[in-house]
């Protein structure tokens, strides 16, 4: 094992996030420290990018807030991320959805992925 992998393994604690990828709609619950008070802020939007490996990996969430596009980068292993909730799985063809930045309104929608539910499982 190389040194960087070893250090990453030692540093990163377990994260029980749901598996998500670009195109999915997620809510990130993020800890914010104001003075000596703490509160949880949630950020809901589409994941447009997942980047990096190991301890330094991060993902970018984009949402439209008051008709203005807002993007926020979250490191996967930040101690300030409390939880990530997967709302909707998106049906997309690319790993990075930067084309979303030029779109607005109807054309910026992402189709939802339809899951096949087997009869046996029920």
């Amino acid at each position, binding site marked *: 094992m*190389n*040194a*960087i992998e*070893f*250090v*990453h393994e*030692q*540093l990163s604690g377990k994260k029980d996030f749901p598996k998500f990828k670009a195109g999915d709609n997620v809510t990130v619950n993020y*800890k914010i*420290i104001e003075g000596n008070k703490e509160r949880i802020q949630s950020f809901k939007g589409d994941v447009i990018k997942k980047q990096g490996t*190991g*301890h*330094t990996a991060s993902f970018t969430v984009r949402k439209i807030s008051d008709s203005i596009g807002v993007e926020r980068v979250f*490191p996967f*292993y*930040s*101690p*300030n991320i409390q939880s990530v909730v997967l709302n909707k799985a998106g049906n997309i063809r690319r790993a990075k959805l930067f084309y979303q930045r030029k779109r607005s309104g109807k054309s910026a929608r992402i189709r939802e992925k339809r899951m096949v539910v087997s009869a046996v499982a029920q």
Partner: protein
Amino acid sequence: MKGIIGKKLGMTSIFDPTGKQTACTIIEAGPCVVTQVKTKDSDGYNALSLSFGDKKEKHSANSEINHFAKAQTSPKKFTKEFRDYSIDKNIGETITVDIFAEGDKVEVVGTTKGKGFQGVVKRHGFHGVGQQSHGQHDRQRAPGSLGNSSDAARVMKGMKMGGRMGSDRVKLKGLKVVKIFADKNYILISGSVPGHIGSIVLIQK
């Protein structure tokens, strides 16, 4: 002073409990063998000679093999002298990363990456002469005038010009020890450190 010889392995980043992310360099530091103890009586100054990195005997001269045999170790690749070492060590003893603690301020000495022949803009921070428009071309990275006219009639010594850049010995001060993995001899130091991956650095305090 105390110090150790290490090898730069790469970079990563680390979070503190408040979530602040710090870039840091992973260095494999030591273990180093004390191969010579210099004293004021015998050599005129106090110093410890540390050696790091194994080398095969067939690649070593007899003089090297015998020198390291005095410390009862195999021949080593790198040997550096540290003046006025603050820890008392005898010949043949080893020095590990344990001499540092997390949170220590340290100095790191290394050799920067070679940049080759570079112009004055990159090498000395000149701003170039010309503009892109107004009928000019070819002057954007030019050094400009080298000096005076007939009085002097020569270029002054030390005039900054293009030339070989990089491969310099550089000491960075005030770097912080972020984390230590003693069983692997890894030490994480805040920020970047001179040199390419695999290059030899000295960590001093």
